[in-house]
């Protein structure tokens, strides 16, 4: 205390108790009248009918009135804005009558010049000996700082919301640029795709495509970049164009993945290496169906759902994570897609989805469950497969925490042979 006194320029030696006592008594002589009038808050006393009986100088200063303007002439509710008056009459006054006090109510006062002053109001009722209300004492705090703070908070919040919307629009646009806007029509083939993005704020690292290579040949791929966000988007873009260009140059899936491996390995090295897994296939019309040459690099095997109701994984063994090693190896397999067969490619978001229903050891949707799903579905079509998959994934709800992409290709079943129709 004495130290504070010295700082304020009052030279009381700290070892003199008499001097300190004198300082306190000076402070205590501060008249109650002066304290009332010049308190850092507004004071107002009103009669039970609302007439203003007493008001302090602070409140008069805030509102720009003289004592004569208010005392005996106006009611407290006259000082309020229209909305405030309504609230005062319907809520404030009845509660005050009932409880004898009410505190911390935010109201707006109207000053003499018409400006508004946001305030926090607390009132108590003074009663006579027989319990009749005699006087209402009201304390008024200037809340304009608080109101400004709240407005600032609201503005910051709205700004953040707008930024987030802008980010989401950007992400959506970027995502669309990385995926085909629609799958091309391949004669004799039905194709359908599914895409689930786990987060609206981050670009997914899953990708797929189906595109013509020549009149008689089509390329398709599906893959997954490790990671997500802007880095994954840049990488997805590189992958997509590398695969498309490589396929035109030499339509051999193994060579195409080799080319991609070289491109990624050169581009992403060092402390934060990036890789992708992918399946790349070439479709060539073959009789009533298609011959598919498929190469894989570290990707989960696709599923073949056959016309006879069976379903099997189609592994591409020994295919390495693409971009990991300078001399990675990839292998190809050939698949025949006959009438009524469906080929399903998917990313690992699917087999890694958390689920409570499949009963896998680690609570995730596994290969076995996916195989069972495929067997139940076969024989089917690309469109039906994607629809069933979408339904399955929707069922996961929040369990689907990774992005998921799926591409299905099917050859329409033979139309039922024309049975001789009897008239």
């Amino acid at each position, binding site marked *: 205390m004495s130290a504070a006194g010295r700082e304020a320029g009052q030279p009381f030696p700290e070892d003199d108790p008499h001097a300190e006592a004198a300082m306190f008594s000076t402070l205590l002589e501060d008249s109650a009248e002066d304290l009332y009038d010049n308190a850092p808050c507004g004071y107002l006393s009103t009669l039970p009918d609302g007439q203003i009986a007493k008001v302090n100088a602070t409140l008069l200063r805030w509102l720009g009135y003289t004592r004569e303007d208010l005392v005996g002439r106006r009611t407290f509710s006259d000082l309020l804005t229209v909305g405030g008056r309504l609230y005062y009459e319907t809520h404030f006054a009845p509660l005050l009558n009932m409880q004898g006090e009410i505190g911390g109510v935010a109201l707006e006062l109207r000053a003499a010049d018409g400006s508004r002053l946001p305030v926090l109001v607390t009132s108590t009722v003074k009663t006579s000996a027989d319990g009749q209300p005699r006087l209402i004492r009201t304390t008024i705090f200037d809340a304009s700082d608080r109101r400004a703070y709240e407005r600032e908070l609201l503005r910051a919040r709205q700004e953040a919301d707008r930024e987030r919307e802008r980010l989401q629009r950007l992400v959506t646009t970027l995502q669309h640029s990385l995926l085909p806007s629609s799958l091309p029509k391949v004669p004799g083939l039905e194709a359908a795709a599914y895409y689930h993005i786990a987060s609206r704020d981050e670009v997914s690292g899953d990708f797929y495509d189906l595109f013509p290579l020549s009149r008689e040949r089509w390329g398709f791929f599906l893959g997954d970049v490790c990671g997500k966000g802007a880095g994954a988007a840049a990488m997805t873009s590189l992958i997509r164009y590398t695969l498309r260009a490589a396929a035109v140059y030499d339509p051999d899936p193994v060579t195409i993945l080799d080319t991609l491996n070289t491109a990624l390995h050169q581009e992403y090295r060092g402390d*934060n290496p990036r*890789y992708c*897994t992918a399946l790349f296939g070439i479709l060539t019309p073959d009789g009533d169906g298609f011959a598919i040459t498929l190469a894989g690099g570290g*990707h989960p095997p696709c599923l073949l759902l056959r016309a006879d109701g069976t379903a099997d994984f189609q592994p591409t063994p020994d295919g*390495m*994570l693409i971009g*990991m090693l300078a001399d990675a*190896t990839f292998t190809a397999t050939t698949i025949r897609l006959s009438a009524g067969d469906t080929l399903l490619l998917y990313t*690992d978001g699917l087999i890694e989805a958390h689920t409570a229903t499949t009963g896998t050891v*680690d609570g995730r949707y596994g290969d076995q469950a996916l195989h069972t799903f495929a067997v139940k579905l076969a024989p089917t079509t690309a469109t039906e497969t994607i629809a069933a998959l979408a339904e399955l994934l929707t069922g996961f709800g929040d369990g689907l925490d990774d992005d998921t992409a799926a591409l299905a290709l099917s050859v329409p079943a033979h139309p039922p042979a024309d049975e001789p129709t009897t008239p």
Partner: protein
Amino acid sequence: MTGLTLTTRPIEHGVVLQLSGELDHHTAPRVLETLKRITLTAGQQLVVDLSRLSFCDSSGIASLVAARNHALAADATIALAALPAWLTRVFRMVGLDKVLVTYPTTQAAAAAWSRRLR
């Protein structure tokens, strides 16, 4: 959300990095950060102990490859210990079984390193 716990301990001939919990998109960056702090000298061994790993996604796989690159950049070797059975299949799928040697335990990994010296 169980997260990932990373612990490192020095051993006579290198460092053991234990990864416990879920190694995924959210936690893999922490492996990369930890790797930066692991200093290896030529000939040492980095043992990644996976005995308590409960999940590993593509980002997790990438962080294991980063661990391999980190060791090789220092002319050190890398060994994985106690690769969970469920991860073995994924390792085969992405071809990691060909570039990362695995042992049943960290002791077995150390023993293999000692044999290599003789």
